[in-house]
């Protein structure tokens, strides 16, 4: 990964990431004012901190966009309580939390310490996806520096409160990004979601009240406390305040992570910051917020990046992962690859997701191979309907929503596959060598 600038115009408001390079060293972070917000926070009461978060109107950056301040205010009072940071970042197309950890880890640590102080948490657990081995060791290093500096593992800045931070590595399961699944995993069970209630705010990590937030959300906390919630709320739109990181990938000239004010548009991101599509290519559609979101069409490029704007356009801002797709791409294959991912990642706990995602994949596979029929396309839509909204968590929806949007927007392509009896794409199209399904090795049988 380039260590150089991945930020360009027009976000004159780089609040979270440094304009250039990285600030991995604590000393360097402190020379830029780092840990100043922590000092300020220690002089504030829990309620004042929560109020500040509410005033900032920061919406969670993990995908659902839930107001961070309100979430903090729900936390049950019983002790001990825990803070859990969601660094599982696995939604395809998303790589922003990693950028924060690589380039500005102390922003996260400072945010964690402020949040820990706010809830007087017994400890914070940073649940980081297993594949981020390097990132985990960078975090460990940053925490070690903070420990050396007396911010961690010792009474915090003259108080009698001792914060602890543990980096907890996952082991490769997308579902562990879903908060209740993450908590099951942290608690030593299979990483499967659980029914709510009980909500994590009442029973989460180790069955105790738990505040759980995304890396970016928490890394933004020092900025908010530093500049004040109200000032932060002045950036972005009224309903989507501040700046947010967007992960740009796919058929675009300058892929990377960009911090954008939420008042900007997808056109700003893709065309201005990202440099548009490579020469001679045209935009077929784009994924606005991670692979689970319905795609938007070229005519929707002027949609705002704000949560409410994306919803109005018929999709969701999700994790902020924007995947640009050019005109040569086969949408049946794109749908198949999308669905395969969710099938592979389905935890297997609830019926519609476990069986539905498999059925969707199998049908898409038939279609991609030119089998099936027009009725089967309708069957596929019907299965998507029966999955969506009926599962224990929204992983099933995450499979059904994009597949449906691909069929709706590109039905002719699907029809063409089944009437032609093959994929019409040329050999040099993206994903032309589509790889067969991802299956694990056959299971050894148990005999007694």
């Amino acid at each position, binding site marked *: *990964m380039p260590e150089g600038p*991945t930020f360009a115009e027009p976000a004159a408001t780089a609040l979270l990431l440094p304009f250039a390079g990285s600030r991995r060293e604590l000393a360097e972070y402190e020379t830029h004012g780092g840990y100043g917000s922590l000092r300020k926070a220690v002089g504030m009461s829990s309620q004042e901190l929560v109020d500040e978060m509410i005033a900032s109107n920061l919406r969670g950056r993990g995908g659902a966009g839930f107001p961070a301040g309100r979430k903090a205010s729900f936390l049950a009072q019983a002790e*001990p309580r825990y803070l859990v940071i969601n660094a599982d970042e*696995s939604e*395809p*197309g*998303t*790589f922003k*939390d*990693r950028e924060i950890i690589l380039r500005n880890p102390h922003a996260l640590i400072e945010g964690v310490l402020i949040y820990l102080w706010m809830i007087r948490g*017994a400890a914070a657990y940073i649940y980081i996806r*297993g*594949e*981020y*081995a*390097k990132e985990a060791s960078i975090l460990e290093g940053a925490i070690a520096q903070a420990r050396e500096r007396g911010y961690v593992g010792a009474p915090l800045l003259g108080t009698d409160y001792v914060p602890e931070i*543990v980096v*907890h*590595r*996952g*082991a*490769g*399961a997308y579902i562990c990004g879903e908060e209740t699944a993450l908590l099951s995993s*942290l*608690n*030593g*069970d*299979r*990483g499967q979601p659980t029914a709510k209630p009980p909500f994590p705010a009442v029973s989460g990590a*180790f069955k*105790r009240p738990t505040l759980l937030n995304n890396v970016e959300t928490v890394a933004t906390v020092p900025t908010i406390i530093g500049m004040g919630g109200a000032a932060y709320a002045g950036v972005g739109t009224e309903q989507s305040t501040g700046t947010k990181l967007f*992960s*740009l*990938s*796919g*058929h675009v000239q300058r*892929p990377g*992570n960009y911090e954008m004010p939420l008042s900007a548009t997808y056109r700003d991101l893709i065309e201005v910051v990202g440099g548009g599509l490579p020469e001679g290519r045209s935009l077929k559609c784009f*994924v606005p917020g991670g*692979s689970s979101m319905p795609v938007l069409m070229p005519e929707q490029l002027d949609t705002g990046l704000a949560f409410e704007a994306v919803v109005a356009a018929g999709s969701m801002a999700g994790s902020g*992962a924007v*995947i640009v*797709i050019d005109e040569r*791409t086969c949408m049946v294959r*794109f749908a198949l*690859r*999308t669905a395969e*991912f969710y099938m*592979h*990642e389905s*935890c297997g706990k609830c019926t519609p997701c476990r069986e539905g995602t498999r059925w969707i994949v199998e049908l898409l596979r038939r279609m991609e191979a030119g089998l099936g029929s027009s009725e089967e396309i309708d069957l596929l839509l019907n299965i998507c309907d029966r999955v969506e909204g009926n599962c224990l968590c929204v992983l099933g929806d995450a499979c059904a929503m994009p597949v449906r949007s691909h069929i709706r927007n590109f039905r002719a392509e699907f029809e063409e596959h089944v009437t032609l009896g093959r994929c019409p794409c040329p050999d040099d199209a*993206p*994903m*032309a*060598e*589509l*790889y067969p399904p*991802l299956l*694990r*090795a056959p299971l050894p049988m148990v005999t007694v």
Partner: protein
Amino acid sequence: MAELYEAIQREIAKYPDRRGAILPALHLAQEHYGWLPPEAFEAVGEALDLSPAHCLSVASFYDMFFLQPVGDHVVEVCTNLSCALVGSDRLLRQFERELGVHAPGTSEDGKVTLRRVECLGGCGWGPVVMVDEQYQEHFQPEDVAPLLTELRSTPRPSESHA
């Protein structure tokens, strides 16, 4: 053996409930054994006071734990959307040709295990390949042969640390 037991006890100390240490314990065991054979689950179960079956149940849920032996090096190619859009399938086939195996599989000489994996979170710099838990970005088919030559001549990462 005793080292693994002790290392797991140190992990347990970080959690208010010993069960919380199961993932760190499984990571440690995989480092120790190279993969997770049945005795790894017995050892982890004993160290955590949990049934080996529970440890297996947890391990088998995740993609990073190997329930079958793997080669000295593990090469994992992301074929998820962003990488696929920029040619990861072609790259994977190149690996397969060079290694003479289908993913998931291990080359005949036992040197390299090839796996196909889902999004690694490097989407802007695809195709991404993870080699022994290290990311390599913008990986092109022509990079395959040099990498494999290098891997074939280097020992297992755990041994090179030692």
